[in-house]
């Protein structure tokens, strides 16, 4: 998986949690609007993120969810329990998708059917609200196309425009030749040289755009640099700037007011130009140009600038297409001329034109010569007609029309016409299908044909899926496997059917021919590119519903002390916390463990310095240094432990949803109260709590809390209350779960336990009510008569108990019939560091966890009695069985006795029993970081783990429960 995908999954899970919280809040919230806004934000972010990946199922479902959420924000009446259920289902789908991403290492398999079902259910909500809205005049979003003024000038309008300009100018000038248009005035702003360059680049290209960009005065304060924007226009061939600044005294200038206009000529398409200026659509104007329009003559008018004879011969030369002759004439005339004159401009143009070699030369030359004559007040010259083609403009128009009608025809005859999709979609679909069909015809023996087929089926799947054609999707799925194994027959047949009605030509025309494979592929590639472009366009044009704010509510991270009691979302999103891979923290933990061991070697070193080398001062200094290192190491260890601490909310946040779901299914009413969510404990402890707690909650709802009518009859409120409370008690965490349900009947439990043979008759009589109730914790006990859907899946409370005990926790149960049940779970806050008592036996050191140690005593040999082959002694009026450690570990040597003839006995609590362990000696207690045994050693049950101690040796930690 890529890091991005990992990040996505992790963030998605956070978002799902946030969404789930908000969904629950909506039902209770008085201020639905705020909650719905928040909800929308979360879904919106989630959906936005999915767009980064190729997960169409996910994106589609979330898109529908987003739309519904957006609608619900506006119309809170849309919200009901069923919608909440549906959205929960949707989020479950997303959660499963995340699982699939992780399990498949980034190649998830989506449940497409489920996705489609969810999507359509979600869309139904939109439809129903649409219907409501239709009664009111629906306000359709305004056309997306930016306001633009586009004029393709026809020759006639151009010459009319020209007439106006000329009459305004000089009446003495004659009419310009009828087919020569004066360029728009706007072009006069260009440097003649740029125009010439532009012309040289496109002597025959007839599609040019003049763009006039009039930035708003304040545009600099929007971060615009209009000159940069204009200069980077696609296909720009010339540009110019005019500005009112020229007339402003610099002392009066406000340089931050934009008072300029920019002009540019581009040979890109109009779409490309408009796309480039999409941020400022109202500030530009586009005008179609012909290449001829570039032939702008600038300068001062002087009617006798060129001698009449020279003009004649120039016209003649041009008429006969004698370019070198014409050039000579022009050059000669230019040499003597004031370059600022109009005539000089025209002659320079001629030079530029002749320098070009292509077809547009004659037309352009005639154009310039006629303009020159106009400038010189001479009537238009009669040039011979040479291979004058049809009017280019109208030709193009006809072309477009024809091709368009062709398209329409072919779609009409297509079998896909029955589909309820837009004309454009159908056209695109048909095109795509045809291309896929032809790809299938390519040589199946190519090494890569498998990939090709797989690509085809993927494309087809996406097509049909995105058009909502579930039948086709399913049919395709059935055919895909065979196709991937090389049997294309059925797929081809099916595809042909889809295309039926459309002419079967493609097959006939493009009969697969191995020699032509390559050409074929090229063509296909081209077409695919075309289609992609089409589809892109469509996508961008699709009007979408208005979405909105997003906020990833991070579940309060380990370090978040600040967002403890305050639920508000505002405090959650703050990014004060950092996500760290758990492995890194574990590594840190290991390192500090080693560090502590390493620093513990210093006192040994000091001792040696003093005793062996007699360096008393040195020893003292080492000890001082040790004190410093020790303090830092301990603080460090403390900090690292803090990092591992997690708030109880990490698991408790799942309960609201759980309780809601279960109580709805059981038709019970339950109020859930969670307290102490900020209580912290080690990550492992918190995590190990999740399963047991869920089980307990299920039990309470299933067996504890009664149906509303039963409750009312018993004089209780209809809604039951379930309280889950976490708190800290010294270095332990206490979790209490209390319900006010019917409680547990101790007699019933007694009978059951007896029936199942868990207790004998005497015990049944002897047990107190409290003890009886705790029998449910015994293995194999389940009170439910029938195995219900919710609890009692063969795992009873005993599973809960063993899970708790695994992390050195204890649990107890209290119940009062008719009043409710109370469960207490007590856990260590941290399992990372264990305090152990070190004992010595047979020359070896071993550890016993301190929380099992009750006391250490010296027992005189005379006070040890053997009762029924078991050694015992009496401590504080209590009989304590004794076991020799050496014997338990199958060590041959007897336990050592001290000078006063006493045995060292460690009294420990194992489960509910108290037992005395005879060892050789006690060595005090120490904090260790216990590591589980690995490799072959992991099979040895007698030890729960091992740890390094200060002098660098290994300490084995005894697992008393196992060895006794």
């Amino acid at each position, binding site marked *: 998986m890529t*890091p*991005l995908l990992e*990040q*996505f999954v992790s*963030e*998605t899970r956070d978002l799902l949690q946030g969404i789930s919280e908000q969904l629950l809040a909506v039902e209770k919230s008085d201020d639905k609007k705020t909650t719905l806004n928040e909800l929308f*934000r979360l879904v*919106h*972010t989630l*959906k*936005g*993120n999915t*767009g*980064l990946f190729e997960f169409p199922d996910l994106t589609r479902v979330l898109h529908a969810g987003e739309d519904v959420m957006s609608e619900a924000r506006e119309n809170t009446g849309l919200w009901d329990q069923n919608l909440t259920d549906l959205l929960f289902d949707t989020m479950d789908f997303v959660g499963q998708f995340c699982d699939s991403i992780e399990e498949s290492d980034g190649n998830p398999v989506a449940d497409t059917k489920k996705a489609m079902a969810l999507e359509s259910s979600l869309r139904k909500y939109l439809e129903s609200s649409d219907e409501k809205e239709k009664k009111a005049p629906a306000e359709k979003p305004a056309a*997306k196309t930016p306001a633009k003024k586009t004029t393709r000038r026809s020759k006639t309008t151009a010459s009319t425009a020209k007439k106006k300009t000329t009459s305004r100018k000089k009446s003495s000038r004659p009419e310009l030749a009828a087919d020569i248009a004066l360029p728009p005035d706007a072009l006069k702003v260009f440097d003649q040289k740029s125009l010439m360059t532009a012309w040289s680049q496109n002597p025959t290209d007839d599609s040019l755009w003049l763009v006039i960009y009039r930035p708003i005065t304040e545009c*600099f*304060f*929007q*971060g*615009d*640099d209009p000159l*940069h*924007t204009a200069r*980077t226009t696609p296909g720009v061939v010339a540009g110019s700037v005019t500005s009112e600044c020229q007339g402003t005294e610099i002392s009066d200038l406000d340089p931050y007011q934009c008072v300029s206009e920019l002009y540019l000529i581009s040979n890109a398409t109009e779409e490309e130009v408009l796309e*480039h200026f*999409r*941020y400022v659509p109202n500030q530009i104007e586009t005008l179609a140009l012909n290449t001829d329009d570039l032939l702008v003559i600038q300068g001062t008018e002087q009617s006798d600038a060129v001698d009449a004879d020279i003009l004649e011969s120039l016209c003649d030369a041009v008429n006969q297409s004698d370019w070198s002759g014409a050039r000579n004439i022009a050059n000669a005339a230019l040499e003597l001329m004031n370059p600022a004159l109009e005539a000089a401009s025209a002659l320079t143009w001629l030079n530029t034109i002749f320098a070009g070699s292509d077809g547009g030369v004659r037309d352009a030359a005639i154009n310039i010569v006629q303009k020159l004559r106009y400038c010189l007040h001479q009537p238009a010259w009669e040039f011979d007609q040479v291979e004058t083609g049809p009017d280019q403009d109208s030709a193009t128009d006809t072309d477009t029309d024809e091709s368009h009608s062709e398209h329409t025809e072919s779609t009409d005859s297509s079998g896909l016409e029955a589909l309820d999709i837009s004309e454009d979609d159908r056209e695109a679909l048909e095109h795509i299908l045809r291309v896929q069909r032809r790809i299938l015809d390519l040589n199946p023996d190519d090494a890569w044909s498998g990939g090709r087929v797989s690509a085809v089926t993927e494309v087809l799947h996406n097509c049909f899926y995105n058009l909502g054609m579930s039948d086709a999707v399913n049919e395709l799925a059935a055919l895909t496997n065979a196709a991937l194994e090389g049997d294309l027959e059925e797929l081809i047949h099916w595809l042909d059917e889809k295309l039926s009605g459309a002419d079967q030509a493609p097959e006939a025309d493009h009969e697969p021919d191995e020699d032509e494979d390559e050409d074929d592929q090229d063509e296909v590639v081209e077409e695919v590119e075309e289609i992609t472009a089409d589809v892109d366009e469509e*996508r*961008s044009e*699709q009007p*979408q*519903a*208005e*979405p*909105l*704010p*997003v*906020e*990833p509510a991070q579940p309060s991270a380990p370090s978040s002390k600040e967002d403890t009691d305050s639920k508000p*979302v*505002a405090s*959650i*999103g*703050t*990014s004060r916390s950092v*996500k760290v891979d758990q492995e890194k923290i574990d590594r840190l933990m290991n390192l500090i463990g080693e560090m502590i061991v390493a620093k513990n070697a210093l006192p040994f070193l000091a001792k040696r310095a003093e005793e062996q080398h007699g360096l008393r001062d040195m020893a003292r200094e080492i000890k001082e240094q040790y004190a410093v290192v020790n303090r830092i190491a301990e603080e460090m260890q403390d900090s690292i432990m803090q990092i591992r601490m997690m708030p109880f909310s990490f698991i408790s946040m799942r309960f609201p949803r759980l309780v809601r779901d279960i109580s709805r299914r059981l038709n019970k009413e339950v109020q859930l109260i969670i307290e102490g969510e900020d209580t912290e404990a080690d990550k492992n402890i918190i995590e190990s709590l999740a399963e047991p707690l869920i089980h307990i909650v299920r039990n309470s709802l299933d067996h504890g809390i009664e149906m509303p009518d039963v409750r009312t009859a018993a004089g209780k409120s209809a809604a039951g209350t379930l309280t889950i409370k976490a708190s800290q008690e010294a270095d332990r965490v206490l979790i209490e779960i209390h319900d006010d349900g019917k409680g547990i009947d101790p007699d019933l439990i007694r009978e059951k336990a007896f029936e199942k043979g868990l207790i004998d008759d005497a015990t049944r009589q002897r047990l107190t009510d409290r003890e009886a109730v705790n029998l449910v914790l015994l293995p194999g006990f389940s009170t439910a008569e029938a195995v219900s859907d919710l609890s009692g899946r063969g795992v009873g409370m005993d599973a809960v108990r063993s899970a708790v005990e695994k992390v050195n926790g204890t649990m107890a149960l209290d119940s009062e019939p008719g009043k409710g049940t109370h469960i207490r779970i007590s856990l260590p806050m941290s399992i990372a560091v264990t305090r152990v008592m070190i004992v010595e036996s047979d020359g070896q050191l071993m550890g016993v966890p301190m929380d099992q140690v009750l006391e250490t005593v010296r027992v005189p040999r005379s006070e040890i009695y053997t009762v029924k082959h078991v050694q015992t002694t009496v401590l504080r009026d209590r009989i304590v069985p004794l076991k020799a450690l050496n014997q338990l570990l199958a060590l041959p040597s007897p336990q050592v006795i001290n000078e006063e003839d006493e045995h060292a006995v460690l009294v420990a609590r194992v489960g509910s029993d108290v037992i005395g362990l005879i060892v050789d000696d006690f060595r005090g207690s120490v904090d260790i970081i216990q590591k589980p045994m690995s490799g072959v050693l992991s099979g040895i049950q007698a030890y729960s783990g091992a740890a390094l101690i200060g002098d660098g040796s290994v300490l084995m930690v005894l697992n008393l429960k196992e060895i006794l």
Partner: protein
Amino acid sequence: MSKTIFVVDDSATMLMSVRASLEMNGFKVETASDGVQALDKLNSMSPDLIITDINMPRMGGMELIQALRAMSKFRFTPILTLTTESESGKRDQAKQLGATGWLVKPVPAGDLVRIIKQVLPGA
């Protein structure tokens, strides 16, 4: 000298994706996860371009743009909003407040760089 781009988004996934695209193309990238954090960080830096999401906790993109435009050092800095395809209304609103333009999520790396070059002379 490579240009610095400041990206603000509350989605860590989105930040990661945009950062990768930008760094691949030689830009320096700094990020923040909401408007408040952005303003805090921007106090001590002057990126060449700012890209911001609209919907964020604490302080959203609209407010951020307003705040930045009120600061003399960011009067003229190009600001792009990071919107989804359906947020065209928001884009216009952001422009009114002083944004230079917008990006549409998800932004392919090629488009991102093309657009940045369009609004950032010398990039």
